[in-house]
């Protein structure tokens, strides 16, 4: 059984089909990249997978459970328990420190544990920035805090919508490296990107166009090997 399965999913705004009968399977532990031109429906799809939005038609099976008919409250529970989200604009709470931002995800999920949150920050190489506020961190550092926040509750799947869109190359490299490590640990990853370099490190890439899956490529050279980038 696939971890995630979309069956004929459509999202219709007025007469615009942002998603048009999309079907897709993502296996447990898989690393999938989604590409496509602007307006092709990538974010729409991510929001539906991430239980932030509801499809107009179709079924979404997450862990064998159909989430397409669930009400807002049930979707909140699914986001909390099964999904880790990473955004292009980071979205950190400005008045909380890095470690508090990570603890926020724990707070809604179960119980905040500062030690565990610090370990997560250590994993993304930010142990010495734990008490900094987002405004005191660089864009790359902020995104690494977001990665720590997304992985802290061991979600079934991590969804990242253009995680490197606001980062320079060096930071992009670091974030990709973090994904590689998560993948090695068995985390399922879905990453939307405009950047072919970010896409080609994934196992598989699907390309959306006008709300449909245009084509799909499998990365033959996928190694999953960890490069040795020092995180600091």
């Amino acid at each position: 059984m696939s971890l995630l399965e979309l069956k004929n999913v459509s999202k219709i705004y007025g007469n615009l089909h942002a998603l048009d009968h999309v079907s897709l399977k993502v296996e447990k532990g898989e690393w999938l990249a989604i590409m496509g031109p602007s307006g092709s429906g990538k974010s729409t799809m991510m929001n539906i997978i991430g239980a932030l939005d509801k499809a107009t038609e179709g079924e979404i099976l997450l862990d064998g459970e159909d989430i397409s008919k669930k009400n807002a409250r049930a979707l909140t529970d699914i986001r909390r328990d099964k999904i880790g989200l990473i955004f292009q604009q980071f979205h950190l709470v400005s008045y909380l420190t890095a470690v508090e931002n990570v603890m926020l995800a724990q707070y809604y999920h179960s119980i905040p544990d500062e030690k565990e949150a610090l370990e997560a920050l250590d994993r993304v190489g930010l142990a010495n920035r734990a008490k900094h506020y987002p405004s005191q961190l660089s864009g790359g550092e902020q995104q690494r805090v977001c990665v720590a926040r997304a992985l802290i509750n061991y979600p079934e799947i991590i969804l990242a919508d253009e995680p490197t869109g606001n980062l320079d190359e060096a930071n992009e490299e670091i974030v990709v490296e973090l994904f590689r490590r998560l993948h090695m640990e068995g985390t399922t990853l879905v990453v939307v990107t405009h950047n072919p370099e970010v896409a080609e490190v994934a196992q598989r890439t699907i390309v959306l166009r006008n709300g449909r899956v245009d084509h799909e490529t499998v990365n033959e050279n996928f190694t999953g090997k960890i490069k040795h980038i020092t995180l600091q």
Partner: protein
Amino acid sequence: MKKRRMYFRMITASLLRRRSRMVIALLAISIGAMILSGLVTIYIDVPRQMGAQFRSYGANMIVTSDGDTITTKQADAVREIVPQDKLVGMATYRYETVRVNDRPVMAAAADMEQVQKTSPFWLVDGAWPAAESEIMIGKNVAELYNLKPGKRMTCTFAPETETEAEGNETEEVVLDNWIDFTVTGILDTGGKEEDYVYMLPSDMEKLTGEPTEYDICELSVSAGSEELKAVAEQITNEVDGVSARLVKRVTESEDTVLSKLQSLVLLVTIVVLALTMICVATTMTAVVAERRKEIGLRKALGASNQSIISEFMGEGIVLGACGGLLGGLLGFLFAQAVSRNVFNSSITLMPWLVPVTILASVAVTGAACLIPIKSATQVDPALVLKGE
């Protein structure tokens, strides 16, 4: 337990680290709470304050004899019944007709110190009589005899002929009962007092040769009309031979002024309450608006509507409590300042008002937060998290 700690950590962080916005809300709440507690203090204290003020309008209770005259013993009994801290003054009068240049003039004898207390509005040109053979005369008397302070005036007492008919003629004719007074002051009241002359009881005793007894007793008591009624009843019931009644004209106008003043204070309180609520609601609406992304993020992380409500309500309640505490303390100073300036006296401190103000301010803030918080729960995370 840990969860609760994180909750407080978030709320305090939000309040402390986003100071500028919160300071405005806090200011609005404290000022509202200050005026509120100040006005409540004044509202409660105003009868006391005004009571003292009203006493300048003269006596509000009159005691008369059921028979002929009030004895000194009866007067003392009356004085004892009135609560001492509320008794502003008690003046006893004895009236007799005396003759000046063979014309009859009404003379009153009274303790001038007490008269000044019960009738503080009397205008005296010159001085009040303080020693024997000193007399204060009404304006009309002064005009009639063309007298000024410092001049002399002789009063003669002529016993009534009927009573003397059977008495011994020799003593009756004695013209010893006259006194050569010095006029100390001219009395201007705008009333019947201007036809009278005022002397000390000892002079009256000398003039009439009779021991001091009173015709009427005027009391100025600083109390509300209900309490006054009770005191009057007690006097009538407990002191034999006298009855007390209220000067309706005075007590009723006091009641009207008081109730008007209190309803004015109440009205202002309600307006201030409404204004505070509007201000807090506006601030909270702005706070929610500028934190839509944060709310969306919290929801994306799995925050239920309940969590969002409890977080914002928590901030509101902390703000309300701090504002209430600050306002409650400032309110006392405010009431004190108003009291000093308007009533010329200081206010009684009511410590229970501080917790009450805090509770009221928390309730008002909470109510003001309801609508903004409702809009916070309606934030759609998918919408607010994308873009820019």
